[in-house]
């Protein structure tokens, strides 16, 4: 395993200070993919994305081409882009939105053409004030350039794109909650079935929802061909992917790496990537794909960065965020903080999630702060079991959306991997790391 010389697909412009401008975008091959797509039939464009086997980059990893093909059976009305990046320690879409907004817009244009929709919305989380400015400015430029709007590049195809701000709610990253929010309502995930917005989406119409990074890959796929994309990576995990590395490493940051060919060890330790554990400490555990994912220990560091590889090892690549915890990290405190997050962000519709997350948070808090009881570990696991029966991976679900079954991941990982550390907190009546 090594760091491969795979091309940079979505980050290649970020070395330029003016990477967000139309001028730089056009000077580096910008909107060529859209011109090429418009010369093809919509079906041929969709077939190219299908051939790339592009897995959605939002977190669930659903094949983008398959999502589109569901829609081609129905006339599709809306394309909605999910830019509500809020999974803790995930900061890759943030980089693309501020750094290369035209690439996202071009991806949206090509996708809209393939799906034959005439209205697209890009939902950005409200905290991305600069991202909203950059994306709206880029959109203004793109309209003026003839790449968005009416009769795009003289092709007869028209599309209106609206940049929509959220207002601070993690749950709006869940696609049906996002649609509710886009309709001007509280971000309550919708009851399933229907399982896919392809059936009933925005304003009750067939809708496709794709992630920002997924869109950013589309121009390259059309320009270079789906086969060139599929030649990168291995198995179902094709192409490159952004990995957001955070926590106790020397060089935290977002890295674009070829899937499967690179391992967590490369990402964390390679001098040109993470550069190793900060402060010369030892690796204790890491979260492989956002805080909803079960944790891995040092013995799993040689796993490849691939969706199925991580999945069969008992966790998920999820949002592509890797959080490194070292020998100085208190695992009780880490699990408590993640649980506090879920408790705060639960939308409140389903009892197991709303009540369970609060109970778990309070029990974790008392353990971390010296008031834990011996029976608390069993109580925690019992509560986790009530939210997600069996506390297994992939998790069982008792709630409308997957926020609920994501809650037990950190607590169950903490207790299973670091039971002694929990017991020391309880026995000594306090945190040994304080």
């Amino acid at each position, binding site marked *: 395993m090594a760091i491969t010389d795979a091309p940079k697909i979505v980050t290649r412009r970020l070395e330029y200070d003016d990477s967000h401008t139309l001028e730089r975008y056009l000077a580096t091959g910008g909107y060529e993919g859209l011109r090429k797509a418009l010369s093809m039939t919509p079906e041929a464009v969709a077939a190219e994305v299908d051939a790339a086997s592009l897995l959605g980059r939002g977190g669930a990893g659903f094949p983008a081409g398959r999502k589109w093909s569901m829609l081609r059976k129905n*006339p599709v*009305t809306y394309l909605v882009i999910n830019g509500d*990046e*809020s*999974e*803790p*320690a*995930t*900061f890759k879409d*943030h980089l693309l939105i501020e750094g290369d907004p035209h690439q996202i817009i071009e991806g949206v244009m090509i996708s809209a053409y393939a799906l034959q929709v005439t*209205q697209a919305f890009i939902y950005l*989380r*409200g*905290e*991305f*004030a*600069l991202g*909203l*400015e950059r994306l*709206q400015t880029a959109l*203004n430029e793109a309209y*003026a350039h003839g790449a*968005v*709007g*009416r009769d795009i590049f003289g092709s007869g195809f028209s599309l209106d794109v*609206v*940049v*929509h*701000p*959220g*207002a*601070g*709610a993690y749950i709006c990253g869940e696609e049906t909650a996002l649609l509710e929010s886009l*309709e*001007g*309502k*509280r*971000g309550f995930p919708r009851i399933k079935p229907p399982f896919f917005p392809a*059936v009933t989406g925005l*304003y009750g*119409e*067939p809708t496709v929802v794709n992630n920002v990074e997924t869109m950013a890959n589309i121009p390259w796929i059309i320009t270079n061909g789906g086969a060139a994309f599929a030649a990168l990576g291995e198995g179902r995990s094709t192409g490159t992917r952004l990995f*957001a*590395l*955070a*926590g*106790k490493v020397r060089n*935290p940051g*977002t890295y674009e790496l070829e899937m499967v060919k690179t391992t967590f060890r490369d990402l964390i330790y390679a001098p040109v990537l993470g550069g190793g554990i900060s402060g010369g400490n030892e690796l204790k555990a890491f*979260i492989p794909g956002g805080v909803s994912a079960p944790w891995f220990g040092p013995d799993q560091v040689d796993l490849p960065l691939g969706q199925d590889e991580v999945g069969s090892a008992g966790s998920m690549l999820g949002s592509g*965020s890797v*959080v490194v*915890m070292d020998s100085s990290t208190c695992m009780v*405190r*880490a699990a408590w*903080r*993640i649980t506090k*997050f879920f408790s*705060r*962000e639960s939308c409140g519709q389903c009892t197991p999630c709303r009540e369970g997350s609060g109970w778990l948070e309070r029990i974790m808090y008392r353990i971390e702060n010296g008031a834990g009881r011996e029976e608390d570990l069993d109580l925690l696991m019992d509560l986790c079991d009530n939210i997600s029966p069996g506390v297994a991976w992939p998790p069982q679900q008792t709630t409308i959306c997957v926020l609920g079954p994501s809650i037990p991941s950190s607590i169950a990982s903490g207790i299973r991997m670091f039971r002694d550390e929990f017991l020391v907190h309880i026995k000594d009546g306090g945190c040994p790391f304080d």
Partner: protein
Amino acid sequence: MSHFNAALLERAQELIALYPDPRSALIPLCHLAQEQDGWLRPEAMSEIGELVGVTAAEVQGTATFYDMLHTEPVGTYVVSVCTNIACLLGGAAELLEHAEASLGVRAGSSTPDGVFTLEESECLADCDRTPCVQVNHRYVGGQTPDTFDRLITDLRAGTLADTIPSHGTLVRVRRTVGLEADRDQVASERSAMAAAQQVRAQAAAKSGDGA
């Protein structure tokens, strides 16, 4: 008499025109109200309701769901300190403690002079610069206690006014295109879309599955 000033009212109407359903503009309009007043005054929520066709209670019910929409007054500068996992590992708990001592308020409250509101926030997606801090939702980079105090001094002195505007996440966002479309064409597309919707609805009713 409009609660929004004339310029904001015009922007509100432009935003409403972007959506097939006016209610979709509810959250963007709340951002505009905060741009004007700093927070969501009851009068603003009533007017937003009138503009998008829902009751004031529905506006309030929606607004209270979202962290960025304030139904009580906040300071000129809302200082958000993230303490989620990546920032926790980067010393966020210590920074928040310092911020509370330095500003003399607990997280979730405002300084008596109304200049600062301190918030403990969830992940702000800037996790390679920890602990992450935003002021009025503008990133100011990872902060140490020392740089935090300098930041507060600079904000008080007004030297950061260019980089950190007062409230409103849309304060520098202007759509300058796309609204000049031929109205007749828009109307004909809308009616074509409505007809298509009807066809689909009839097909769905016929197939009986309600999907």
